[in-house]
């Protein structure tokens, strides 16, 4: 029985997680020129979960959305190939903070009226882990973040969350906003026919500036620097010498 008519999954294009991050020489930002980009791994897990809910007959439509410039079409099409039904691109060429993203998504939630919003718990570039929580607060919808498992049943969803030192379960009324952990599932590989089909699907484009949202940020990046290099390793011959060194360093008694 279909419980959720529509699942909305916001996704983000980020640096590929296998690529080594380099900081620009002038310390103004991270250098992303000629860098391989990919879907944020946690976003892909959210899409996979949405597609599985659809395959189980619990949900009937999966809509993916990405905010950014045209380059995000590549990731939107990948997610269509994974099983999403529609893709929305909210076009904007400047980087936005989580709050501005959440405000745009709030407007989209009003427009699309999803029964569930599923998204990654954080992106591996900014590492903020804010968008889901902010969206939930702005829409006044129940929230579960850092979720590794969901069970949907008659208008409610039971979410298992990772917390410090264990897990906890919360029961949310639908619609709700749920942000997912990497451990939730293993995303599938898209099949060739689905990839071909995704190429032909039209991406629905909207302009961020038409949303009536203040897109200015009050955060200013002063400097981006590489992390401090750790000193060269000192190889020791055995346990006794190691414990001696650790003792001298004052980290064990």
């Amino acid at each position, binding site marked *: 029985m279909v419980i959720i008519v529509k699942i909305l999954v916001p996704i983000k294009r980020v640096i590929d997680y296998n690529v080594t991050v380099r900081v620009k020489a002038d310390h103004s930002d991270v250098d992303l020129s000629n860098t391989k980009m990919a879907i944020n791994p946690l976003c892909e897990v959210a899409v996979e979960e949405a597609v599985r809910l659809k395959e189980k007959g619990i949900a009937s439509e999966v809509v993916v959305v990405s905010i950014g410039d045209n380059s995000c079409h590549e990731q939107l099409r990948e997610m269509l190939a994974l099983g999403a039904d529609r893709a929305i691109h909210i076009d904007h060429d400047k980087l936005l903070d989580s709050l501005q993203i959440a405000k745009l998504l709030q407007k989209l939630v009003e427009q699309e009226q999803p029964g569930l919003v599923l998204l990654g718990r954080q992106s591996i570039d900014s590492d903020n882990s804010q968008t889901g*929580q902010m*969206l939930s607060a702005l829409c006044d919808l129940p929230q579960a973040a850092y979720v590794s498992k969901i069970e949907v049943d008659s208008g409610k969803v039971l979410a298992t969350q990772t917390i*410090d030192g264990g897990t906890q379960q919360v029961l949310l009324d639908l619609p709700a906003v749920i942000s997912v952990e990497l451990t939730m599932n293993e995303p599938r590989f898209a099949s060739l026919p689905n990839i071909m089909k995704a190429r032909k699907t039209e991406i629905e484009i909207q302009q961020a500036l038409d949303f009536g949202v203040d897109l200015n940020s009050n*955060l200013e990046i002063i400097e981006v620097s590489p992390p401090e290099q750790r000193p060269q390793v000192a190889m020791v011959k055995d346990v006794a010498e190691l414990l001696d060194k650790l003792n001298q360093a004052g980290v064990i008694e």
Partner: protein
Amino acid sequence: MTVLVYAEHDNHELKAASFKLISAALQVAKHNSDTVVVMVAGFECTMVAQQVTTIAGVDKVLLADKPQYKNQLPEIISKLVFEHAENYSHIMAAATSIGKNFMPRVAALLDVAQISEITAVESADTFIRPTYAGNAIVKLKSKDVIKIMTVRAASFESAEISADKQAVIEVIDSDVSYERTEFVAAELNKSKRPDLATADIIVSVGKGLPKDGMPLVEKIADRLGAAIGASRCAIDEGYVSSDFRVGLTGATVAPQLYIALGISGAINHVSGIKDSKIIAAINIDKEAAIFEVADYGIVADLNSVLPELEKALQN
């Protein structure tokens, strides 16, 4: 203006992260000769509030004691903090599960940005935080009227207990509730070992651990008073549950000492440990990437090293 700190506790005592959070708040306050106020919200948690009054530098404790605050549901806690937010220049929480769940909501309700997981305070409006899993360190300045931040506890020293002056407790009567989210149950590891997030020493295992190695590792950890951690490979091997995962996709840690046993040093793992003060690595493969970040290394077989280490620590 005043800095508001949201304290974390289990309704009986303050968590270690809160002491570190309060010292970060004192650093922020010092730049403007501001004061620090700490909010304790929970159920039957007066003891926690009393504990906070003894921390040096804390001016006042706000105590919100109601059944609905017991489980720290983010929908409820964010509204509670939001109701009191207008009197403060900064609101700070630890970047723990609780803080990360509720704090972005406070920021959204106030229509301001959140600065996540700061690791250093430059001034009252400029802060340092890692991005790209610690591969880029950002210094940023906030122009928001109320600055919302979470704090990476491991990057700060613990606040000290004061011998003389005690803060006052003010009971706040806010009665916030939320009907559409229900707390069901929590399942916590029963281990008596310290939390990964705040442990001074972590003994961590990887794929290279011998199949029957865990009992020895547990003994070693207990002799050191250490927490146990693991790489993704060790979890896949079934040595420990995924609650123990250290790295980009698990816990980011910064202990005084990180002992990596049979850990190869994949980027995901290394990203989560490189703020450790000392990293000691033992691996049979001398080319293992873990030696690139380690301070001390032994190239050796864990089958023989683990018993030696356990024995050496007995004395």
